[in-house]
């Protein structure tokens, strides 16, 4: 099974990313959406520069999560639109590969988003980066965590007819640890609070690993519709 799973995961990820490239939802819309949300926060926080700098990491991650909801929702909407999800079930592709492929595609999109949005935060909220290594590792680990948990929950709600609204409700509480961990790690990296960044990074990596394994294992059961 070894290589076949990787080959199939790759196939699925490639398909998902290609669909995204074609529809250009990511670049043209999710990124501007994320930037706009950042701006909204600035308004909501009463444009208090000091507060903004302090809360920049938290706001960054809330924004990433909200954008991730869109990306995950689309990843499944595309399959459901005209019954491709049924056909994936019938294709004989190992569910682990489907899970891995979809999670990979989401993670790639999230990383791109984080890079662009991160640049926005550094400029708009006037923060300075102290520890680049931590920043990059935390960004990758958090993306992996959100992507794995998101793919699992995306599959859970897929086909229930109202997934675009159900997904946030289920997923957001679950990824709260990612939000907290990534926020702390970034606070450390930005030097705004003396959090133990690397410890929090451990949490993020653990989260991603757990959801990766759990997702891969339970995906088959999830997909086995009806």
């Amino acid at each position: 099974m070894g290589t076949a799973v990787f080959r199939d995961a790759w196939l699925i990820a490639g398909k998902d990313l290609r669909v995204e490239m074609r529809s250009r939802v990511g670049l043209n819309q999710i990124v501007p959406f994320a930037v706009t949300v950042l701006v909204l926060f600035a308004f909501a926080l009463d444009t208090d520069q000091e507060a903004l700098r302090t809360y920049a990491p938290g706001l960054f991650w809330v924004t990433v999560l909200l954008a991730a909801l869109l990306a995950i929702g689309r990843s499944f909407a595309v399959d459901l639109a005209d019954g491709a999800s049924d056909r994936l079930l019938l294709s004989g592709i190992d569910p682990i590969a489907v899970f891995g492929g979809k999670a990979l595609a989401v993670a790639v999109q999230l990383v791109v988003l984080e890079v662009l949005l991160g640049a926005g935060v550094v400029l708009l909220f006037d923060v300075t980066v102290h520890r680049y290594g931590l920043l990059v590792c935390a960004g990758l680990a958090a993306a992996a965590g959100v992507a794995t948990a998101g793919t699992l929950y995306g599959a859970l709600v897929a086909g229930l007819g109202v997934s675009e609204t159900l997904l946030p409700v289920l997923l957001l509480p679950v990824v709260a640890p990612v939000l907290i961990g990534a926020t702390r790690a970034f606070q450390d990296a930005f030097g705004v609070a003396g959090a133990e960044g690397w410890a929090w990074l451990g949490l993020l990596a653990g989260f991603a690993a757990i959801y990766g394994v759990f997702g891969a294992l339970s995906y088959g059961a999830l997909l086995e519709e009806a």
Partner: protein
Amino acid sequence: MSTATTSSSATRVGVPATTSSRATKVLGWLTLAGFAVLVALAFAWVPEDTRITEQGDVVGQFDAVRLMFVHVPSAILAYTGFGLTFLASLAYLRWRTDWWDMMAHSSAEIGVVFGVLTLVTGSIWGRPTWQTWWEWGDVRQVTALVMVLVFIGYLAVRRIPAEAAVKARRSAVIALVGAVNIVIVNRSVDWWENRTLHQQSTLFARKIRDETLFTLSFSFAVGMVLFAWLLLHRFRTAYLESQIEELEVQEALEERRAEADGADHGREQP
């Protein structure tokens, strides 16, 4: 520019494969020359911004003040671009011709470029003068950002592969709403006087030196020439794109007609 990518298919079918003409060449050289003069004026003639306070301290923006000659004209050009988009959109909704649609699209794109330039130069300028890249408390900065975002959204709609007429009509409505931002940005410093670090209208209140004022006016003139030059090119690019589209349609039309004929002769219709 996109002229390069479009030229091959354009020449193939005999449309002029360039967006330049005598007028644009003149405008181009004028821009370059004007820019050279502007640089000279800004660095050699305009003195650096210093004032001596009563205590004898030297304060001011020093060399940073020279950023004004990029920042302020950019802002004006962004207004111009979006304003033109507004007018062209109105005209489109009235007459429904592609010409106005292309005009709206072209000027919005240029507006966004200069809008971003305003934000960037403003930020750079803010670093030495306000000690911050970005100040959320400043209404002008924030409203300017919103304005640019609205038009980025506008361009996002324009880029969607949808029926041309649908897209044109919908983006025209977005532009109408979006253009309100020009007024808001322009008046923001006066409406929210106490909530801004940003300069209020210093320009015509004659609070600045004559050299600075002259150079600034000169930079407006250069900016306008630059704008005209860019707009001509961008509009012609849009026009060429539409021509290519037209040709593609013609090609597809011929193929489709052949399909019809082939079916007539080849296939037995029950």
